[in-house]
């Protein structure tokens, strides 16, 4: 759309609001905590599981869960299992004893990794770079996106709350971790053509139609106005189904 310029849309197709390319969001994650659980040494598991555990957002839902350092919030994905051969073996650093011990399951452990919401910021944006073209002669995309104060404040609790839960649940040797995270690592990039009621401040209407060109529907993740903290695909699909339903009805009525 940014690349489709005309006399009617000099700043890119449907871009009367100057919101096209803005409000890029992603989820920030790669931090949390893990711990060990004593006991159950004689038990193990077998086979494949389709998923892990999920802890939905529990912050900023109402007055009693209101946080003072940040708005919105995060959820946890995680799971439990037994340590394998990559763990430290107390008995020996190497040799036959090490080999034998490493082939046995270690402690039961549980890990929690937080996925946090990134707020929409107008200056987190993508723009076309007309001076650097790709091999087809098309302008390349410049991405200028960063986490800001709300995300960084949230990240503190994304670690500490995980540790607190594991601790309260009776886990030992609970440790927090933060492997660092840049926008894009979440591979949940979204935003850049947000929907809204007011054509002056949004690109799409509530049926994913371009405000100024109702026969154009934008149904990928770019319509998102906020990122929430959940994996996004199902939401995209639901909105797409809804947009298609609307399109068919409007077509049948002769409105499109």
């Amino acid at each position, binding site marked *: 759309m940014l690349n489709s310029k005309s006399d009617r849309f000099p700043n890119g197709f449907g871009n009367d609001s100057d919101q096209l390319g803005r409000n890029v969001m992603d989820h920030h*994650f790669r931090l949390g905590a893990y711990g060990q659980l004593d006991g159950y040494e004689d038990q*193990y598991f077998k086979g494949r599981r389709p998923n892990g555990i999920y802890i939905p957002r529990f912050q900023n839902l109402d007055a009693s869960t209101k946080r003072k350092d940040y708005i919105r919030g995060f959820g946890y*994905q995680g799971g439990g*299992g037994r340590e394998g051969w990559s763990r*430290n073996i107390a008995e020996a*650093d190497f040799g*036959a004893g090490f080999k034998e011990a490493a082939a*046995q399951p270690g402690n039961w*452990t549980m890990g*929690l990794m937080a996925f946090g919401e990134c707020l929409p910021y107008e200056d987190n944006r993508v723009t076309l770079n007309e001076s650097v073209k790709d091999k087809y002669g098309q302008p390349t995309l410049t991405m200028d996106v960063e986490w800001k104060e709300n995300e960084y404040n949230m990240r503190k609790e994304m670690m500490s709350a995980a540790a607190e839960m594991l601790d309260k649940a009776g886990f030992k040797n609970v440790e927090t971790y933060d492997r660092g995270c840049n926008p894009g690592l979440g591979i949940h990039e979204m935003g850049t053509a947000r929907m809204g009621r007011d054509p002056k401040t949004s690109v799409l209407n509530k049926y994913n139609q371009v405000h100024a060109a109702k026969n154009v529907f934008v149904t990928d993740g770019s319509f998102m106005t906020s990122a929430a903290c959940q994996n996004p695909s199902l939401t995209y699909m639901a909105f797409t189904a809804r947009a298609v339903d609307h399109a068919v009805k409007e077509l049948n009525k002769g409105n499109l």
Partner: protein
Amino acid sequence: MKRRDAIKTSVVVMGGAMTMGSLSALLSGCSPEPSLSWTPVFFDKDQIAIITRVADLIIPKTDTPGALDAGVVEVIDQACKDLFSAEEQAQVQEGMKAFNAMSQSAHQKNYVDLKEEDQAAILQKLADESKETEGPHIFSFMKDMVVASFFTSEAAAMNVLNYDPIPTRYEGCIELSSVGSLWAEGSGSF
């Protein structure tokens, strides 16, 4: 680097999948020839001789195959060339000097010419040293490489661990004694 930290950074927790990172994923794709007739691509012949001794000491052949049966030296040599940055490669090259330096100062001989017990003693010294070291250390590096390439090898999967070709249905609670050891993919996976 402390071994614990190395492992932490190589483990990814996401959506319930906790597996070793790219290293063992890449290694698990290799099925090295345990033959001696191969040409090293990263280490020189003397270094290969040292690594061969070290790999054998870390995971010896017992009543089951050891590191050398699994061909880990070839894997390590190839991995050092293909998987590591120039900076990491330089650290490995520098770290490798420790073996002969320590054996020369204690026994006036090269590492490979020592008796096995003296080789083991030096390796233990390096192991102890690695625990006191922040940042990379040749023992941690060699151990991680030997362990990861051994336990992801066919030899280990078939003879040391439990190989289940079609894992399918999940049972969350079984007696460990009914399987006896880690699953073959058990790097620490959930």
